[in-house]
């Protein structure tokens, strides 16, 4: 497996301590120039030590204490490689599969593996199977990730394909069953893996949410987070000095490579990502696991580790990063928009304590990535290097230090609640009588009456149904006795689709629209919406 490391852009020293100049300006008002020794070593020296069996490897969890004890110079002298690891649900993962040509040959346009669709628009018999694709029969409980896991564990997979007929590919469809060995190539190519850190999730809304950040309980019931903290590869090389195109990595139990920056790579904000590849045929189920996130879909847990050579003191300093140094935001997923409000900024150390204080309440935290498995990855990589089975490669090109993660340009406008709501809504105070309320409803256009306080703030709602019930019961006189106090509302800048989901979810037919001070601005009803949607669909 070993290939001679190329002469990449890694700085090389002469072997012993290098000499560097450090200028310390304006010390005691006198410009001084100090000559100091700066520890450095080269990648080829490290690989030589791996070959000899004299290399010193530690994991990124062990490194911070070593640097505290030895200093960065001592750490460069003593430690050659720091192994990192992460094991998390990495949705942006998948495999390219080449099926070989059938007889008569087929040019596949659509294909399914165990009824999970793979993309067939790449040549005749190449497919790309994405991890998050749900199956057509089992839905979210079985998807692309599960097919990948089945292949890795040696199971047979049912293939169905449809072709588009040409003179050279006369076949229309095909059915077969294949094992991993039967594919010519099975190459994992993951467009976005190993996020440097990830926003944590909380839910302020009234209902349980099922998300790619797991199950989020209502009213700040729990916090879920993701990432491997101080073991994360990029957090140990935040300036991307060693991680580059061509860097050899540990990917799901075998050797893989970084092939570029991942999608949504955004180093400016410490959200770097990696695009990686590796041979699925050599991967192990220990470091690759299919998962299902309830009511969200399938995903793939990927074990990924990068060995970082301790070439100089700067790298040594970076690999001494601790959980407490890495911060992340807790975002409110109760707000179903792209920019979710930040509830609190915390460190990974805070998150790993198991509790975070939110508005005076201790909220339990759960990581969704496995720190235990991340550690197994870093340990496995260390052991491979110690046994002389894994050599470090120099990158052939640096990864970009700037990235782009802009919001989508949406060319088709989506209507907002404020564009569609009716503004001629009548509100009432809570002290009016049932019969007054009944008259207002009869004379108006709505069968919902928002009830407001003295200061015109929304307090509750009364429906025609509530009133008929009250009349039938007799005794009740004021609407304050019958109004519903827990009112679901919409805001004017909320997309109509979200308001429609609220109506549907709570099985109600109208929502008062309120501004941020809870003043009623209008009303949106399911009739308004169905009129609008049918116009859009058929108009």
């Amino acid at each position, binding site marked *: 497996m070993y290939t001679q490391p190329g002469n990449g852009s890694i700085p090389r020293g002469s072997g012993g301590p290098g000499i560097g100049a450090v200028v310390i300006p304006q010390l005691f008002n006198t410009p001084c120039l100090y000559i100091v020794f700066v520890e450095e070593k080269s990648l080829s020296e490290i690989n030589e030590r791996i070959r000899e069996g004299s290399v010193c490897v530690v994991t990124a969890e062990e490194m911070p204490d070593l640097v505290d004890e030895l200093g960065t110079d001592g750490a460069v002298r003593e430690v050659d490689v720091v192994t990192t690891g992460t094991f998390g649900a990495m949705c942006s993962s998948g495999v390219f599969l080449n099926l070989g040509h059938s007889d008569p040959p087929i040019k596949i346009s659509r294909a399914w593996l165990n009824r999970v669709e793979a993309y067939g628009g790449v040549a005749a018999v190449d497919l790309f199977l994405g991890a998050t694709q749900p199956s057509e029969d089992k839905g979210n409980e079985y998807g692309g990730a599960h097919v990948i896991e089945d292949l890795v564990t040696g199971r047979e997979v049912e293939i169905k394909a449809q072709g588009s007929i040409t003179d050279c590919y006369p076949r229309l469809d095909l059915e077969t069953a294949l094992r991993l060995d039967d594919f010519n190539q099975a190459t994992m190519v993951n467009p976005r893996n190993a996020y440097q850190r990830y926003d944590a999730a909380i839910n302020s809304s009234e209902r349980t949410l099922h998300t790619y950040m797991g199950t989020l309980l209502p009213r700040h019931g729990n916090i879920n987070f993701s990432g491997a903290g101080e073991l994360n590869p990029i957090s140990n090389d935040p300036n991307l000095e060693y991680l580059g195109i061509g860097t050899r990595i540990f990917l799901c139990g075998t050797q893989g490579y970084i092939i570029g920056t991942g999608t949504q790579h955004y180093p400016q904000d410490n959200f770097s990502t990696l695009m990686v590849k590796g041979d699925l045929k050599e991967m192990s189920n220990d470091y690759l696991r299919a*998962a299902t996130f309830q009511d969200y879909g399938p995903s793939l847990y990927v074990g990924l580790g990068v060995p970082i050579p301790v070439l100089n003191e700067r790298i040594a300093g970076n690999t001494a990063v601790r959980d407490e140094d890495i911060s992340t935001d807790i975002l409110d997923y109760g707000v179903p928009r792209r920019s979710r409000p930040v509830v609190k900024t915390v460190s990974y150390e805070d998150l790993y304590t198991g509790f975070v204080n939110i508005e005076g309440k201790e909220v339990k935290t759960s990581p969704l990535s*496995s720190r235990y*498995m991340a550690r197994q990855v870093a340990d496995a990589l260390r052991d491979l290097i110690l046994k002389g089975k894994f050599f470090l490669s120099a990158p052939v090109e640096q990864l970009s230090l700037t990235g782009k993660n802009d919001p989508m340009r949406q060319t088709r406008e989506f209507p907002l609640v404020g564009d569609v709501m009716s503004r001629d809504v009548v509100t009432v105070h809570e002290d009016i009588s049932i019969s007054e309320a009944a008259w207002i409803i009869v004379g108006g256009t709505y069968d919902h009456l928002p009830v407001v306080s003295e200061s015109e703030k929304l307090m509750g709602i009364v429906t025609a149904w509530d009133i008929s019930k009250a009349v039938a019961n007799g005794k009740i006189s004021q609407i304050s006795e019958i109004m519903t106090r827990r009112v679901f509302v919409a805001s004017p800048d909320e997309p109509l689709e979200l308001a429609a989901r609220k109506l549907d979810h709570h099985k109600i037919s109208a929502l008062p629209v309120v501004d941020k001070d809870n003043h009623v601005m209008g009303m949106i009803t399911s009739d308004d919406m169905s009129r609008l949607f049918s116009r859009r669909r058929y108009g």
Partner: protein
Amino acid sequence: MKLVLHVEPGIVRQPLVSSVILETGALVNIERAKVDAVSGEIVIDVSSDKCMEVKTAFEQRGVKVVLLEVPVIRDEMECIHCGACISICPTGTFRFEDFKVIEDAGKCVQCGACIEACPQRALRLILK
């Protein structure tokens, strides 16, 4: 100790729990109760010395009683120690020990929340 009481529709309206408490003098904690059109299921917690006495008292009233020794099991082969089950559990059944998930299964009241939250489908409720 936890007991699961399966209550048939015919007796569901009787004050079963209170009469057993009065008869046995046991301190009973109702951990979960679900009663619908066809049957009822109640999970109670009683101290181990009173457990058998309470069990018999319910059985005499026509209730099917199952002793819940290990309410929830975690499949060690499937579990990846992600910890998703920790914050979701209302009774604190799971916790980390050096980043490995371990459970105190006796705390489980079989609410079912963790079953769906486990991305590996590694958790199972016994007798459900």
